């Protein structure tokens, strides 16, 4: 379990973004708010292959209680959930769009996320497209770049700590689960 109140410590490791972009796109309190407020996550580029990173992330998020919607034109069903060829084909609302596609594909995905009225866009580790990020921000979406949603969830729920990783969380306050 992670810290209960707002974070006062810096989280900086394991990103290639410069400090000013880390401050803009990796704010720990914003990440925690997104993880807490989100119910439905469309994972664009979620693989059918159970040993791919996107599948690890999808199965983790599903187990943690999120509704995961696979977006993959080559699949009918992934993780027991119906898959859709693109975001616009998803019938219901989407809170968060998590992107596992190359940077070049991000602008189009963000355009669809805006059309779907998603609340936030998350580009996974090393998937960096600042133009797509700006597009999303201009439309009022929250944006996270160059972080893994599974690692971040594990950072704040305490499980990443259990495997000996440096969560960079430092506090003397009693733990409280935030999401």
């Amino acid at each position, binding site marked *: 379990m992670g810290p209960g109140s707002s974070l006062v410590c*810096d989280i900086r490791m394991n990103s290639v973004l410069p400090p000013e972009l880390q401050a803009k796109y990796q704010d720990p*309190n914003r990440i925690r708010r997104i993880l807490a407020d989100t119910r439905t996550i469309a994972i664009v580029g979620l693989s059918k292959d159970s040993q791919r990173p996107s599948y690890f992330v999808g199965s*983790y998020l599903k187990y943690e209680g999120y509704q995961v919607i696979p977006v993959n034109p080559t699949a009918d069903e992934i993780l027991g959930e119906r898959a859709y060829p693109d975001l616009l084909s998803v019938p219901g609302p989407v809170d968060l769009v998590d992107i596992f596609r190359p940077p070049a594909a991000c602008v189009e995905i963000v355009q669809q996320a805006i059309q779907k009225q998603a609340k936030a866009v998350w580009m996974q580790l090393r998937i960096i497209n600042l133009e797509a990020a700006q597009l999303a921000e201009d439309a009022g979406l929250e944006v996270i770049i160059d972080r893994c949603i599974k690692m971040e969830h594990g950072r704040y729920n305490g499980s990443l700590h*259990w495997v000996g990783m440096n969560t960079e969380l430092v506090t003397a306050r009693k733990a409280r689960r935030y999401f």
Partner: protein
Amino acid sequence: MQNNKRQFGFETRMLHAGHIPDAITGARAVPIYQTTSYVFDNTDYAAQLFELKQYGNIYTRINNPTTAVFEERVASLENGTGAVATASGMAAQFITMMTLLEPGDEIVASAHLYGGTVTQFTHTFKKLSVKVHFVDPTQLDTWAAAITPKTRALYGETIGNPKGSILDISALANLAHSKRIPLIVDNTFATPYLCRPLDFGADIVVHSATKFIGGHGTSIAGVIVESGKFDYSHFRTIADPSPSYHDLKFYETFGHYGFLMKARAETLRDTGGCLSPFNAFMLIQGLETLSVRMDRHVSNAKLIAQFLHDHPRVAWVAYAGLPDSPYHDLAQTYMPKGPGAVFTFGLKAGNPRQAGQQFIESLHLFSHLANVGDARSLVIHPASTTHQQLSDEELRAGGVGPEMIRLSIGLETAEDLLWDLDQALSAISE
């Protein structure tokens, strides 16, 4: 919410990193989770854990909540991305190498290493068809010359045992990275308070936590820390599908955690060299006072090194904190607070073997034993103890002579230590 930019200092992290008080009990000290195993939420969760799709506790041979506090705290202090605790320092380096290497691989290592490490590398690794080339760590050319297409890592000690040579970490990191191989540094003698090798470009740090990290001489332990910055995408053992994990590709799946996840979920699991939760608890107590202890260890060591340097019955003192040490400049670069508290000196005597014996038998406060980094001052005669398995050739390569005495300076009153050394030196017959 206003300030989420605070970077907490080293001492704050010694006390707080890796431990958030428990949500239910609020226990302020780190509890000892003396348990082998953990009840699963349900069958789905169990399956997810075993496939590494969830981070969680499975079995104490793989992870444990008390040990995790020790691991994260050391990772934080070393500025690493994470850590894996092990049963001993020897297990830490063994697990590191067994994670990185395959039969037929080679490593290039400093010749100025702990004798037990030399033995492990030379004889145990030979059984695994891994060849280690030992080189003079002070000569960068000799490292470069020993690298072959089969070389998979460079290895050295921050402060070389037993001659006190200082590893040129930045230069070796550049050399290693030009060959796309990692630099592994044993940081036992410096501790992360005096030197953080990852900050200078090293990729993996290993410790015998038995020493200064514990500080009390009660518990054997080791730890592996990784930077998370090395690109393993070409490194077969970390990047290729793993046959012992349903063809999982650790580097692709876990990225900057890939090496450590593999070290834990495969090598630690399969070799069994885990740390006991009780020992992890003991080491956590040590970490909480690390900086305070190291400052005193270093100030005592500097006084004693200078005293011996000026003593008529001492031939030489190998301490990089002395201005005339050939390693003084490197020590200033890599550990400006001081090059630790373990060093050697040579007795000036006609029969150095006998003089060594007389000296050790005459000491009152220094404990004669095979360890370093205790709160108490320690002494040993390497040629007849720690290095006795080495051949004469290996001894010479390691820089160990019959006149050599190794000291580990403790936290006692400095004047008492000086008195003890002086009276023992006087007891040596001419």
